[in-house]
Every structure is written in C-alpha cells, then in structure tokens.
C-alpha cells in the first residue's frame, strides 16, 4: 500500500478514535490528554486538550504539578518514539489541512505568495508557535488568568461549531465569541492560503512536539552523498523545509511526502 494512503487511513482512524465520546454512543470519556490539538469541548471528544491541562496547572499563580507533567509526558512519550509524526499521522487538524492543501498549493503560483514563502524572515516567523505556547498558554495563565483556550480557533472549530449545529437555538454567544470568530476566520483563511500554515507558524502543540525530533527514534534521513539536488523533496514538503539540508528538523512532521517523491529513493524513514 502506498505510504500516503497508509497515512490517510491512520489520520481517519485516529480522528474517529478521538471522537468516541458522543453521549452514550459509545460515550467514552477518558482522563487522558490528546497528544495533538483537539478540544475537549467537542461533544464527541474522548480526552482533554493538552493545552487546557497546562493552563489549568498554572492558573493565576498556582502550580499543580500533576496537570503540568501529565500532558507533557504523554506528548514526550510519543515524541521520543516518533518525533513530530503525531502532527503528520494523527492530528485531526492536520487531516483538515491535508484537505485544504490542494487549494493552498494553487496559491503557490502567485508571485506574492512565492515571495512571502522565500522571505528570509519566514523562518523566524515559525518561532511564533513557541511564543504562543510560552506567552499565551503559560505566562498569561499564570499572571492574569487570561487563557489561550478562550480564543482558540481549534476550540471554535471542534467545540463551538459542532455544539451550535447539534443544538440549534439552545445557545447564545458570550463575550469571547466575536473575537474568537475573527481568529477562527483568520485561521481558516490561513490554512487555505498557506499549506499547513497553522502547523508551521501557530500550533502550540507542534511547538511542544517539535524539539523531540532532535532525539526521536523515528526520523527522516537523507542520503546527501548521492543527492542530485533536484529539490523535488523540498517542493512537495507541506512544511516547506529544505529537505536535503535538514537534519532532524523540528519542523518535520514525518509525513513521508519527500520519501515518496525522491526519484532516487535517497530519503528514508530511519528507526534510531
């Protein structure tokens, strides 16, 4: 079976696994945290968003070490084994962006988009997700109690919208709704304009998983000695990584598109 078909099956299975909590059918509500970005406010969610647990652990100057360590260890366990493969093979928001990537790729033919993509500051902009993680998940929660999840676009997509659809007329927007709606619209535009735009620049869970690429057992390896620098791998990479020159790049989501695309078979998954 082709690698990308396997990945699609994995994403679909894990999407359904993340949604086994719908009331009584089967109504599975566990005490785990997802290792990816998904909201516990989703009517069918089985587990908790790791960011929610982290926020709660440092709520207004308090520190609950159990809620702090628990999501980090779940993410760390998978991170040490597979690095950021969770983003490429499991995350439902990754699956959504896989769906929008065809549209985003079409935007690549516009010069302005290409120019933005090759802008030298682009690689620094990728640090935004680390800033969001530290600044909005930890620091603001600790100091003032303002929390990321109140405005989270993923929460809006997987929690607010399904609840509004399933319970028409039962809810009215609160004061967070207008701001969250604007952020959600920007999120939606982003994923249609830039392939994996959310994963590249903003996903705080990706920021947690990314550094594990440096030590994970599973990683992508490039045989640079025989590489002809045709750059097909970099062209197909949804994270826009310079694949021939990457070595355990924190941005790599191990989707395997470069593995499939390399005409000489010089890019492989390695398990140590």
């Amino acid at each position, binding site marked *: 079976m082709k690698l990308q078909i396997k990945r699609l099956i994995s994403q679909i299975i894990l999407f359904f696994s993340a949604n086994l909590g719908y009331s009584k059918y089967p109504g599975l509500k566990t005490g785990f945290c997802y290792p990816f970005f998904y909201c516990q406010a989703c009517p069918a969610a089985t587990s908790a968003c790791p960011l929610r647990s982290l926020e*709660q652990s440092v709520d207004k100057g308090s520190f609950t070490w159990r809620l702090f360590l628990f999501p980090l260890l779940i993410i760390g366990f998978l991170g040490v084994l597979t690095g950021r493969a969770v983003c490429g093979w499991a995350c439902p928001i990754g699956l959504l962006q896989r769906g929008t990537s065809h549209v985003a790729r079409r935007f690549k033919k516009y010069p302005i988009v290409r120019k933005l993509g090759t802008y030298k500051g682009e690689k620094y902009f990728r640090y935004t997700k680390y800033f969001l993680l530290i600044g909005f998940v930890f620091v603001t929660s600790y100091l003032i109690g303002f*929390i990321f999840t109140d405005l989270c676009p993923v929460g809006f997509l997987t929690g607010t919208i399904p609840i509004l659809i399933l319970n028409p007329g039962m*809810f009215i927007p609160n004061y967070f709704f207008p701001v969250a709606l604007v952020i959600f619209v920007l999120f939606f535009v982003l994923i249609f304009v830039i392939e994996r735009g959310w994963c590249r620049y903003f996903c705080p869970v990706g920021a947690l998983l990314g550094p594990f690429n440096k030590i994970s*057992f599973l990683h992508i390896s490039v045989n640079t000695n025989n590489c002809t620098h045709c750059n097909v791998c970099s062209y197909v990479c949804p994270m826009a990584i310079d694949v021939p020159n990457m070595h355990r790049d924190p941005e790599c989501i191990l989707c395997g598109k470069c593995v499939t695309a390399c005409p000489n078979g010089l890019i492989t998954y390695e398990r140590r």
Partner: protein
Amino acid sequence: MKKFVVLQVCMLVLVSSLLGGMFAFTPVYNEVRSGIVLVLCLSCLKLEPKTAVTFTFDTTNNQPHPGFVLENLSHGPVFLHYSGNSCAGCDTMYPVIKDLFSINFGKQDMFHALVTFNNFTVAYIYVNVDSTIDELRDAQSIYDQTQFGSIPMFTIVTLGYDNGKVKPKYTTIYGTLTAFGCNTDAQRLVFLQQLVQESIQMYQENEAGYHHL
C-alpha cells in the same frame, strides 16, 4: 552514535516510567477526567445556554434530590454555585456572588455557609469542580437541565406546592447571565437578587406544609 542511542533509550525509560508512575500513584487520570473532560467550560465554548428562569419539580431523569440539599433546605432556600479553575466565566461570577451574600471565601476552596439575605436564611454551597467531593460533583447532573455539565452553573432549590404536596422546586441558570441580558456586574447582581428573593417568597409560602428531614 552509541552515545546518542543511549540518550534516546534513557529518555524513553525516563518518560515512560514517569508516565507510568503518574498513572499508578497519582489521581491525575481522574482529575483530568472529572475536572476537564466531563466539564464544559462555557468560556472555552464561547457560548451560553439559552435557558428560562422557571422553577420546576423535575430533576434530570427524575433523580432524587441529594441528601445535603434536603438537609440544608430545612434552613431556607439552597443556593448551589458550581465553578472551576481556569474559567473566565467563573471568575466573572465569583465576585458577584460574594457581593450577593456579602461573604468571603477562596475560589479554590469548598465553601458552605448559612447566609442572611434580606433577613432570611439562605444555605449557600460553593462547589469548585476541580477540588471537591463526589457527592457535590454528582449533584450537578441532577440539576443540570441542559445535561452539558457546564460551568459556571447556579441552582436555587426552594419549596413549591404540587398536587397537594409541598416538594423541593428548583431552577438552574448558567454562565455570566448573558442569556438574561446581563452584561455588567451590577446587572448580574440585581438579576440574582431578584431570583433569590423570589425563591425566598416561594419558601415562605410553602414552608408550613413541608416535612423537613
């Protein structure tokens, strides 16, 4: 290369043993389940249930009123306040409730007091879903008319007359009371004052016919 593999193995052993240890020796699994997964923070949801302020005798699935509510009902109406950590809506309502009953308590504590409201006793019970006991947490589902387990949630249990019998009657409201047109703390306070006053009147009208526990 060997050093790197040793590092990887050490990391895996460390992470998996810590994770296993947390499952085995700490209540974190239950904390996450009961404090995050089973609770719907209305601020995170960015929505509030559109409910009416109507007193009813019918609890969810006709469950009996919990013992601690019936015990406190002998003193006056019972005001149940469900709240949680990391919940902006709960933070908004917390000072309003403190003003309503002129009381002071820590947001993360369990709190129970017989308070005086317009010269009448009201039993106030504060439940922080992140640090409470099962009996109090389970009572939420009995009075949760929407069945979402959402916070903040307020239930007032009083007495009502039903087919020749005086029985506990209650109403439940949610969130920051946006559904009732309250957008400021002052409006929220006035709304709650009127609601508590109404529950006191109902209690006074029916108390004589009620057989207390």
